[in-house]
């Protein structure tokens, strides 16, 4: 029994959350630093996981999960505390552990007590403790190889997110006086209800799966193969799982909670939602829907692909129509999640590798764009695009970083998202040409909404309100620069990532018994 690395990776932020919450109210700064250090230490552990991880490892009896830990938990129902990672999980754990420090750093002052009396005091400790709690749960749900264990954290995640969204919003300024947003609690409740609804349906499916299989363990399945179940049963269970993940992802038409949540939450929390928490949904589609119910997945593929396609075009079009910066980014994310889901269900190795890369890249790019947008908003105190203009002349660095974030969002070649998006498109195209071609319209629309956003906010004559706007501060530069560097590096040299992901994807492909369509002309290589 070696050192339980995975448990440690998840336990550290959990303990950190408790410690942070325990810091006395007066010592606010101490709490911040504590949270930051914990998140950095977690990042260190995640790096350790990356190092210990061997892409081409195949365990005994074809159990491809690594760094496994397994203890009996609720023996009566065969629920086990069972952890293990494959390439996809490792990539996403790394992404999560990487983003959280930036989120904390970006939200450094978001939870400070307000100077004006107009709004209630918001406990700083709670903010950072909740963020760490979310990190712990997300990491655990990436590690869990026991369906029930996964379900627990998949649901528990909602609680801290609910408080983060409902408790800490933008500090909207109206003629100098701070006013609390009325929409915020609505957004938080909406977020909770949508995800709970999905979760409940999933719970039924989880129990159903136990009835069929007699256990919850993915590792057992990896070793002994799937339990045989009737086609109809498999399809029902698949739908139960998929619904929950589609809400979380979010897939059209279950998306409407995201714009509210991202619009009302502070930028760091919005990043937490779209870049970290939602990834659990898409990840779970790969891990559970495809591996537990391969036949049903293939059965549902056409419908899901069409929905994903709708998400892509629809999200992009709505992003064009937005007047609120953060909602715009939210709809852009919906469009991108459409790409991810499309790549997953295209059932080609390009598509699925692309989708996995896409999860990572979208996490980074959205974080970059959203955080810079957050800095911008915190300066002017308004989320409306119309309130900005000519920022580029006042704060060139801010504008530059914002532009790079936008270019990443429209997946410009040379930046990370391009690789994944193109892989997804190619992977889809080889099996479903029409859908692939329609999806390419998405890249034109992406260019439209990002560039319109940049033009309206950054260029043109300087608005008097923004004329005194300061450029990025050191703390903010520290947040943005590494993200941009990462975007460029992964865009030019994504090989390290693909090396980790490819074997896992190959495994998934074999689980669903799908082969890539072969080109009819075998060109001279």
């Amino acid at each position, binding site marked *: 029994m070696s050192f339980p690395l995975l448990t440690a990776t998840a336990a550290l932020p959990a303990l950190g959350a408790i410690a942070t919450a325990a810091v006395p109210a007066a010592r606010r700064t101490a709490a911040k630093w504590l949270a930051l250090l914990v998140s950095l230490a977690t990042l260190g552990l995640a790096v350790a996981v990356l190092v210990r991880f061997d892409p081409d490892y195949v365990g005994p009896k074809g159990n491809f999960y690594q760094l496994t830990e397994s203890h009996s938990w609720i023996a009566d129902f065969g629920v086990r505390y069972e952890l293990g990672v494959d390439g996809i999980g490792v990539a996403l754990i790394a992404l999560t552990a990487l983003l959280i420090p930036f989120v904390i750093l970006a939200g450094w002052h978001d939870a400070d007590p307000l100077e004006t009396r107009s709004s209630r005091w918001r406990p700083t400790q709670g903010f950072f403790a909740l963020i760490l709690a979310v990190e712990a749960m997300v990491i655990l749900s990436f590690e869990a190889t026991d369906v029930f264990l996964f379900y627990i954290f998949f649901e528990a995640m909602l609680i801290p997110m609910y408080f983060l969204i409902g408790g800490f919003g933008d500090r909207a300024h109206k003629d100098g006086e701070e006013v609390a947003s009325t929409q915020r609690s609505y957004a938080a409740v909406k977020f909770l209800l949508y995800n709970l609804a999905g979760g409940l349906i999933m719970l039924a499916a989880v129990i159903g799966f136990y009835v069929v299989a007699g256990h919850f363990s993915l590792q057992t399945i990896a070793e002994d193969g799937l339990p045989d179940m009737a086609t109809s049963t498999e399809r029902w269970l698949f739908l139960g799982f998929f619904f929950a993940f589609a809400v979380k992802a979010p897939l059209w038409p279950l998306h409407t909670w995201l714009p509210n949540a991202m619009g009302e939450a502070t930028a760091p929390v919005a990043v937490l939602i779209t870049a970290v928490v939602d990834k659990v949904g898409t990840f779970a589609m790969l891990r559970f829907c495809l591996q537990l119910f391969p036949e049903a997945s293939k059965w549902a593929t056409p419908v899901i692909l069409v929905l994903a396609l709708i998400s892509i075009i629809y999200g992009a079009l709505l992003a064009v129509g937005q007047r609120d910066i953060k909602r715009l980014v939210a709809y852009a994310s919906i469009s991108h999640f459409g790409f991810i889901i499309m790549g997953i269900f295209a059932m080609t190795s390009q598509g699925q590798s692309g989708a996995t890369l896409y999860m990572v890249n979208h996490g980074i790019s959205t974080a970059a764009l959203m955080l810079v947008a957050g800095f911008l908003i915190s300066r002017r105190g308004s989320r409306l695009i119309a309130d900005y203009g000519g920022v580029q*002349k006042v704060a060139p660095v801010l504008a530059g970083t914002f532009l790079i974030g936008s270019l990443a969002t429209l997946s410009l070649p040379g930046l990370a998202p391009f690789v994944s998006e193109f892989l997804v498109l*190619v992977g889809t195209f080889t099996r479903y040409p029409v859908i692939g071609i329609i999806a390419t319209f998405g890249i*034109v629309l992406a260019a439209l909404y990002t560039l319109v956003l940049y*033009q309206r906010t950054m260029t*043109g*004559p300087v608005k008097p309100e923004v004329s005194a706007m300061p450029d990025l501060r050191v703390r903010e530069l520290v947040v943005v620069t590494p993200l941009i560097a990462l975007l460029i590096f992964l865009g030019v040299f994504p090989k390290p990532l*693909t090396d980790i992901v490819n074997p896992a994807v190959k495994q998934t492909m074999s689980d669903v018994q799908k082969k890539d369509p072969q080109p009819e*002309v075998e*060109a001279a290589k």
Partner: protein
Amino acid sequence: MENLIALLVVAPLLGAAVLLCGGRRLDAVGHWIGTVLAAASFVIGAILFADMLGKGAEEREMTQHLFSWVPVEGFQADVAFQLDQLSMTFVLLISGVGSLIHVYSIGYMEHDERRRRFFGYLNLFLAAMLLLVLADNYLLLYVGWEGVGLASYLLIGFWQHKPSAATAAKKAFLVNRVGDMGLSIAIMLMFAWFGTFAFGPVLEATGETSEGKLTAIGLMLLLAACGKSAQVPLQSWLGDAMEGPTPVSALIHAATMVTAGVYLIVRSGAIFNGAPDAQLAVTVVGAVTLLFGAIVGCAKDDIKKALAGSTMSQIGYMILAAGLGPIGYVFAIMHLVTHGFFKAGLFLGAGSVMHGMNDEVDMRKYGGLRKYMPVTFVTFGLGYLAIIGFPGLSGFFSKDKIIEAAFAKGGTEGWILGGVALLGAAITAYYMTRVMLMTFFGEERWRHAPTPSPAEPSVEPAAETHGEHAEPHPHESPSSMTIPMIVLAFGSVFAGAFFGIGDRFIHWLEPVTGHAHGHPPVSALTVTLSTVAVMVIGVGLAYAQYGRRPVPVVAPRGSLLTRAARRDLLQDDFNHVVLVRGGEHLTRSLVYVDHTLVDGVVNGTAASMGGLSGRLRRLQNGFARSYAVSMFGGAAVLIAATLLMRAV
């Protein structure tokens, strides 16, 4: 020697990185760094060129494999370069003209406090463009392809405080994106059918696939070319792109970037050879754009927009030639190079004129400038003679060849295309003469004209430093600007002769593109003579209209065609009505739908649930007796159940 290839790209890329991340402390030396690095890549290109000349015609191609870019099951994209004669030609053109324009910009942008960033963008452009022509597979080419798009976006919108500039930049990028869509679909098709998208394998595999598939790929590539090279129907962005600083217009929107489409088609020649329909489409697009651009060029009073129109039509020539297949490839590239020289020269000339005239761009407020800026006059004049195809100058050789090739296509197509090309030549001569006369001859209309005209709000910092917006004082530009113009003038005078005489250029490119000698229905001599003839006619017309009579300062209303041409033949209006308006309506209605329908369904279910529970609540009226009734009924039901059980 191969290892040098990467340096071609790396040098300017390094420059861009340094300049853009360097911050203000580099403002003093920024432009020098940029220029030196651009020149460096030219020098490397020259070295490689010399080395290439040393080898035999067949083993001149060299490749460099850097690293594996995106390795996924069956999908192998590498970062690898391929340098053959075709790429070499472009490398020299790009880095050469590019360096010259760097030098020119030192003077031109002197008064702009963001000059450092300007040079950073220029370097970025060079890097992307070189990557485009050096890539050995379509995906890497795509990177360069969008990279130049980005650079052009940044440079067109360089004066971002001008809303017009920002809009033009966005427009350019979007229209290009439509073309890029074509390119990416083409790549997907290649991957789906050939399992690869590297030049070599794909072009070999063309022999084994059906003509239909080749046609599909060809049309997608054509769409891409249209976007990048401003061909109908995606040409609308080029005119607005003139919002950028003039050096940008010269480098990107005249000499290099806009010709990328031609490169793409010539590079994919094997595909087009296998798909006659696609070729026909290419020629048609080329011919139409040729006339379109020429007509627009006749109507514009803005000197840069007039030149932009001519660029469009000249690229139309190239596309037309490229569409003709092996007969035309070489001439397309040849015209591309010569055009690179004289059009860049013309733009630099225009820039120098504007520099001397407080950035006035309306030719109706010029006139008689030849005594004030002699150097500009001479160089501009030589470029003018070159472009109208004055015998002996470079334009003459390249354009004449294309017209020949067009006739050589044979059949009615041949006649039509040839005729169009001839007509184009005539119109070219007409509008260029018009520009020439309005600018450098005639009375000095600027003396009374207050500048800048309200139509063109001159908010360039350069203009502000010129101080009072009173009567301009035309003056010759500094040497840093004139020298590049002189060099380019040399090029535009002698390049054509150097290439054309003895088919040097054909022998140079033949190994790559292949070449077939066409047989025009009429003798080459006839074609040449007629070309000269129509040229003379065009000049004569223009002289009759603008040389004899004085030019009105305020543009006359003009005929219907003229007014349409002034509005880019209503292309923008069409786009606005169909795309922009329609798009706005679509998005607005969608936002509404999302809020009411998609969201409403969910909220509706929630509300109905509430109502239902409200009704159920009524049953709980709190009266013990009604509870007793239900209990009693329950008991009865139980008994009934047991009886039934015993019955069955």
